[in-house]
Structure formats: C-alpha cells, structure tokens
C-alpha cells in the first residue's frame, strides 16, 4: 500500500479515513493469507517476509490516530458512536492478524500430505473472499446500506461453507498417525483455529454491519 503522510491523512474526512483503514487492514489480511500459502508451498523465506510485514506495518496506527482526533471533534450526530465502533472492529482484525502472524512465525511446519494442503488452500481462499467482502461492505456503509447488508449476507454464507472445510481439516489432522504433543500437530491445530478465529470475527463484524443497516434504514 502506498505510504501516506500525516498531512494527507488530515485532509481526509471520517468516511475516507474509514475506507483507507479498512483497505489497509484488508491488505494486511491478504498478505497474511498469502504468507500461509507460501508456507503451504514451503517457500519459507517469502512466508517469513509476508508475516513480518503484517506485524511490522504501522500505517494503520497513524490512520487511527487521525481518525480518533477527527471523530471526537466531528459534528456527526447520531452515527458518531457507531462509526467509532466500526473503526474499532476493523482494528480488532488487525490485532487478530498480528497475533496469528506472531504465532505462525514460531515454527516452520512441513505439511503432512497434499490433501491436507489442498484443503487448507480452499479454506484460505474462502478467508480471502470474506475479507474482501467485508472490506466492500464497510465501504458501502456510507453510500448504500442496503448493498452493505447484502454483501454481509454473502460473507456469512461463505463463512458457513468455510466452517465445514475447517472441521474436515481438523478431523483429518486428528486422524493422522502422529505424536499429538509434537510441534507439527500443535502448530497445525493452532493454524486452523486461528483461521477460525479470524473468520469468526469477520462474520460477527458482518452481523454488526447488518445491524447498522437495520438501525439506520427506514423502510416504507
């Protein structure tokens, strides 16, 4: 993502800052997912590089600072608290992603077999899809709440499908003939569970957006 100066950030309004923030966090999510794909392909160097990017990038801190300064002074009325909550929910994705990346960097795993790899790639593809969907939904809040609501419905549907693959993956892992206290087992278990955690947060965020749409939209 293009670096942006504080001066440029200050010129942006609340909505533009939210969009920039969600783009930034989504980009980090995609880097994280790509990093895990590198791990699947055993490209450890690229994997480390991507995950370190997720941990070290701090553009979002600058955006958050400017956003918070602006929102407290802003003349927005009834949506102020909701916009602040929206922003903090985006920030939670960053925190989960960072936690996930730090944990994944503790060890470099070699996957048990190709079937496990291909199942994991399918899960990652879904994770990428819901992360992108959520970004679109956040961006649509300002201009079209109804559209945001529909995108969130798709995100939730994808999350539902994804859950089945995750349980299959865990089931597969538990049925390998391996030491259940081994680092490989623990690492892969944590990997699947952290993907679940991130995806669950995205789903709950989608529900929050749907709540906002219900709250603000008035139907005839």
């Amino acid at each position, binding site marked *: 993502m293009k670096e942006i100066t504080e001066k440029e950030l200050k010129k942006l309004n609340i909505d533009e800052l939210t969009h920039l923030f969600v783009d930034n966090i989504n980009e980090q999510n995609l880097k994280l997912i790509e990093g895990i794909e590198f791990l699947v392909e055993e490209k450890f160097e690229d994997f480390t590089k991507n995950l370190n990017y997720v941990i070290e990038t701090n553009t979002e801190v600058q955006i958050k600072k400017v956003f918070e300064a602006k929102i407290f002074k802003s*003349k927005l*009325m*009834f*949506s102020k608290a909701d916009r602040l909550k929206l922003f903090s929910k985006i920030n939670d994705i960053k925190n989960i992603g960072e936690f996930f990346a730090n944990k994944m960097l503790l060890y470099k795993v070699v996957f048990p077999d190709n079937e496990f790899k291909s199942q994991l790639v399918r899960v990652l593809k879904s994770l990428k899809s819901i992360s992108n969907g959520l970004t679109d939904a956040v961006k649509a*809040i*300002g201009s079209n*709440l109804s559209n945001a609501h529909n995108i969130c419905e798709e995100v939730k549907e994808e999350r539902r499908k994804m859950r089945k693959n995750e349980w299959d993956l865990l089931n597969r892992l538990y049925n390998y003939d391996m030491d259940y206290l081994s680092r490989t087992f623990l690492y892969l278990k944590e990997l699947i569970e952290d993907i679940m955690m991130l995806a669950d947060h995205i789903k709950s965020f989608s529900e929050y957006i749907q709540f906002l749409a219900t709250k603000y*939209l008035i*139907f005839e």
Partner: protein
Amino acid sequence: MAVDIISILVVVLIVLAIALAFSIGANDETLSTLVGAGVIKFKVALLIGGIAVGVGMFSFSFAFVAKTVGADLLGEAITYTEFMLLTVLISSILWLVIGSFAGIPLSSTHSLVGSIFGVVIVYSITHEAVNPETVFNWAKLNNVILGWFLSPLFGLIMTYVLFKLLAKVYLSRLKGLNQIEKSEKYFKWLLLIAVIFAEIWVGANSGEAVGILYGLLDGGTLNLEQYIFFAFICGVFSCLGIFIAARYVIRNLASQMMDSRPSESLITQISSALILMIATFLSLPISHSHVIVFCIIGMSVAQRKEVDYKGLGKMAIYWILTFPVAAILAGLIYFGFNLFGLV
C-alpha cells in the same frame, strides 16, 4: 383579624402558584431531544426553551386552560374561596411529592383537577344551601376528562401517521449513512423550531399555576392588573424553572438520546405540540407527559419496535388513580379545615 388571615392566605396562594409555575418548568423535559441532537449549546437551549414556556404560559393566561381551571370547571352556584384554592394546591402538591418519592410518574394536571373535584364535592356536602348537582360545570368536566383519554390516543395516531408519511415520501429513499446523516442535519434545525413551538404550547396548556391565580381573579380577590402582574411572574418563574432546575433532567435524558434521529424527535415533538395546541384552544388542560409518552409509542409502533406494554399498563394504573386519589386527599384536607372551623 379574619381579614388578616385571608390576606396571608392570598399571599401564600400566590407564592404557591409561582412555585408551581417554577416546578412546571423544572419538570419539563421537552428540551432533551434538542440537547441530545446537539443542535445548539446547552445554556442557549435552556434559555430559548425557558422563554418559550414563559411566553406560552403568560400569553394564554387570560382565557383557555387558565380560565377552565380557575373558573369554568365550577358551576354557577359557587366560586373558589381562598381555602378551597389552598386545599387544591396542598393536595395536588402532596400527591405529586408522594408520587415522586414512590418513583411513580404522575400528572400535575390530573392531580390538580382531581383536587378541585374533591374540594368542591366536600364543599357541596358541607354547605346545605349548595346543590351538589350545580357545583360543577359537568359538561366542561366531562370534556376535560375525555380530553385526558383522547389526547394521548390522538398523539399516538398523529405520530404514527406523520412518521409513515415522512418515511414514505422521504426517509425510505435515503440510501447510505452519509446521506442519512446529511439529511438529519437539516432535520435538527427543524427540530429546534418544533421544540420552541412545543414549549410554547406546554406553557400555554400548563394552567395549574395561572389557573389558581385566575380563581383569585374570578373570586374578586385579585384585580386585573394584579392578575396580569402575577401571571407574568409565573411565566418568568416557569422560565427560571427550566433554566435553573430542569437542566439536570434534560442533560440526563439528552445523554440517552444521543443516538436518536432528529427526524424521529421532530415528529414526536410536532405531534405532541399540535395536540397541546388543539387542547389549549379547546380550553382543556391535558397532561403533556401522557401525550409525549403515547407519541413515543406511536413512533415505536410505526417503526415496528417493541413496546413495553407491561410498563405502560403499570403507568396507566397510576394515571387513572391520580384523579380519585387527589380528589379523596383534597376532600379530606378540606373536611379537616371545615372541622377546625377555618372554612
């Protein structure tokens, strides 16, 4: 000596009427929607609201609700005596204080009219020369009581219809949060006008304080100049009531209304103001709080939100009880005065 007691009584009555005007302002929460929406600065809102209530109270003190409370409720057979008015004030204030300590929301209008009823009934019983059938202007009393039932109902219907109309022609066409926020910015200025309008009618329909003074005018205790002066003082004190005492209630309620939309508040305020206006022109003292509660219910029904029917039922029981309880209380106090030979 008797003249001295009456003079003291008149002074006490005027002081209590002014205190009542102050408490009307102090209990007025109409401004909370305006403060919650952050339209204007808090103190400016208090000042504007206070002036509007004061203007409403003073401007309509020569007829309408003040005349109903102070004269028209009574039949041709009687006029208020100072002790009757004192009893009415003591009883209604006492019942309101009991209600406040018990945490029961009560209507000062219902309490006052109930007290008048109790006092007049006991007066007619204790004075053999007075025919109980002619002590009241029964048609007026019936209209007042009918107004208490119809005004909240009309408030509910009006809010429902106005909101549905606004939703159909405008609100439902707003798509995104930015568009909604922008349109609400315009609504908040309309809300300012609506709240001023509402405050004027709150003042105009709060005939309790000036009604007592009108009773003194009608009984010949006060002359017109004195009445105008004290009615003006009542207006000023209702304004001070908002500025000095209502700020805490308003600030508290306003903080709970930060999330509420000015367009919704606008509809409830316009509806309640219109009901109060119509009731004032019909010379019917009604309860502002009852009307506003039903306007809010009308809004909830229109938005298909949940309505706390259990809480509403509980509130309705207190509303219905206020009139008879205040009447019994006032009757007992007046009977006590009678026993001691004060009346």
